[in-house]
């Protein structure tokens, strides 16, 4: 069998070289299909993981602890006191960053405009490795600490309020006692984020300063960024056990739209891969079937000389797998090369408004996963093998004598 396989490989490769033009076209078709699959796969993965990271960065973290009912009615009255530090709630090394915040709905008013926002009290040091606030570009100054009673606004919000750095705005919010408060803030910084949603959504100040102004004893949420996302369920279990009176949510339940889109991206990847591979399979069947019909006299002669039909079938299979292997390798390399060339990302600035609606960043950076490459390679071989069976069967279905006479079945 080993000898036979060596012979088959030699025969197969020579046959492929005998029909250079046809096989080069077939190889190119496979390569283009695979390269486009690898590239589109990397782009969809890039979008998918951007969306997940944005959802986690958007003041959610991997896990968040809130009081019961807070998500439905996020008021200062639902604040809770924390006697332990957030880090002590989970095993050491399990948490990359954690933060306690006060977050309430509010209205910001300037001389000419009024906008609804979420008023967020933070400790800026806690946010550094936890949320977008840790890496955001700030025009002006950042907050000096948790007791800094000045305000950060997003650039888009400042523009819509027709206000600017250094100006004063009035923020209206309900205090812990349920009474409404009007708070005067000086804008100390204007932050820029890649999209406009976060710039419009938040007004940020020091956590302890806000607690004093709203009469809040405690915080309204604790966010955790985990070192290992696979430990999410285990970490949630530990938090639920440590804080039985509170609720623990993961980023998927906090941002169900992003979670749904994340899963949809998985499904769309498989659908796209299936479409490309089915098209590839049909192309392969068509090309090989034509080649087999053209070589009917050759197969008839081989069988008349004593070649076993199984070896004829194997020869056709080997030829198709060789060309598929070459095409898949070339296509995969080309796809990886495209991904490398686009490593800095694709600037979607021209379609920023539309892209933002789908939760995309302005720059889409492709992300290549090893598992996806393996899947593409394996699936290509499976489809190529299945696609080769019919032409191979056609090669042995014609009796040798009939084949030598040049007639077709």
């Amino acid at each position, binding site marked *: 069998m080993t000898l036979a396989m060596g012979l088959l490989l030699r025969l197969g490769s020579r046959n492929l070289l005998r029909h250079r033009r046809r096989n080069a076209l077939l190889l190119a078709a496979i390569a283009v299909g695979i390269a486009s699959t690898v590239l589109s796969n990397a782009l969809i993965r890039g979008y998918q993981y951007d969306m997940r990271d944005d959802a986690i960065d958007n003041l959610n973290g991997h896990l968040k602890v809130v009081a019961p009912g807070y998500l439905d009615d996020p008021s200062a009255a639902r604040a809770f006191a924390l006697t332990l530090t957030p880090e002590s709630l989970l095993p050491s090394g399990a948490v990359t960053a954690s933060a306690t915040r006060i977050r309430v709905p509010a*209205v910001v*008013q*300037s*001389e*000419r405009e*009024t906008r*609804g926002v979420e008023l967020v009290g933070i400790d800026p040091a806690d946010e550094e490795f936890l949320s977008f606030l840790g890496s955001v570009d700030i025009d002006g100054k950042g907050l000096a600490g948790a007791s800094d*009673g000045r305000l950060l606004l997003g650039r888009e919000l400042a523009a819509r309020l027709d*206000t600017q750095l250094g*100006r*004063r*705005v*009035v*923020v*209206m919010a*309900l205090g812990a006692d349920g*009474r*409404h408060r*009007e*708070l*005067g803030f*000086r804008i100390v910084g204007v932050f820029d984020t890649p999209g406009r949603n976060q710039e419009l959504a938040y007004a940020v100040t020091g956590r302890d300063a806000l607690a004093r102004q709203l009469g809040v004893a405690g915080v309204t949420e604790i966010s955790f960024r985990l070192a290992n996302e696979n430990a999410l369920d285990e970490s949630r279990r530990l938090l639920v056990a440590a804080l039985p009176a509170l609720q623990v949510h993961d980023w998927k339940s906090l941002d169900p739209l992003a979670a749904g889109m994340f899963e949809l991206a998985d499904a769309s990847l498989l659908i796209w891969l299936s479409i490309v591979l089915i098209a590839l399979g049909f192309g392969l069947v068509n090309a090989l079937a034509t080649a087999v019909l053209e070589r009917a006299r050759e197969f008839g002669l081989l069988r008349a000389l004593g070649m076993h039909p199984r070896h004829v079938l194997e020869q056709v299979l080997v030829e198709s797998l060789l060309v598929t292997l070459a095409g898949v390798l070339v296509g995969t390399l080309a796809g990886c090369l495209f991904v490398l060339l686009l490593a800095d990302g694709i600037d979607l600035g021209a379609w920023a408004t539309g892209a933002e609606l789908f939760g995309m960043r302005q720059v889409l950076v492709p992300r290549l996963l090893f598992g996806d490459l393996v899947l593409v390679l394996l699936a290509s071989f499976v489809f190529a093998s299945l696609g080769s069976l019919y032409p191979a069967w056609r090669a042995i279905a014609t009796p040798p004598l009939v084949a030598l006479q040049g007639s077709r079945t």
Partner: protein
Amino acid sequence: MEGCSRAFVAAFGLLVLFLPLSQAWSEEGSSTSDELSNAPDPKQLIAAAIDLTRGTRSYAELSMVIHRPTWERRSSIVAWTRGREDALIRFVAPPRDAGNAMLKTDESMWTFAPQINRVVRLPYSMMSQGWAGSDFSYNDLSRTDQLLKDYDLALVLVSSRDNHQVYRIEATPRDDAAVVWGREDLLLRDDAVVLEHTFLDQALAPVKRLEARAVGTLGGRTFATRIRMTDLESNEHWTEVEYTRADFDVALDDALFTVFSLQSGRAP
């Protein structure tokens, strides 16, 4: 509808501060350093203007005109007030708006629409906004006390007019004040009557101005019977409120300023 009502409350609250005026005035003469040094404390002047309406119970009939470059809308209103914080207001014309009513007590505000027979409590965030159709805002009424609490007051000019001293006061909000304005300029007479109130943004550009347009005697008091709030950043945008009847220090049942009263539509 609620915007109309709110605008009216604002107008009404400020209106009672606008006491007798003569015709159009000009600032006659300029102040000397002696006049400025002998002038009363601006804080006392503002406090006196605020005290004019504290504790007053009144009944009034008014008309309101909202003017825009391409249209104008007139409404007729009756109103009862208790002090500076509480008011019940009903629209009586035009027929489309008749029956609509608004109740304001302290920090809360409700509206009633007879067509749907529902009382709706307005969120506090809406109470801070100006109404789209009118040039008044709720803050124009409720924040008068704030001038004493959150502002640095400076008397910058003294002039004479109609046998009264007229003072120009610049009110600059303190840094931590919950105030959006960069400065407010007021013209007050020596009898604590506010003649003009201009709101400037933080670049000190004027944004809107409230001024007395006519004077009359109603309910035994002489005061500005017609005031106009003008949006200084838009052409031909103003809202004018005119008293057609006013009774002061009338006996009003406290039950009048309740949600039940708002919905029942009863008069005292």
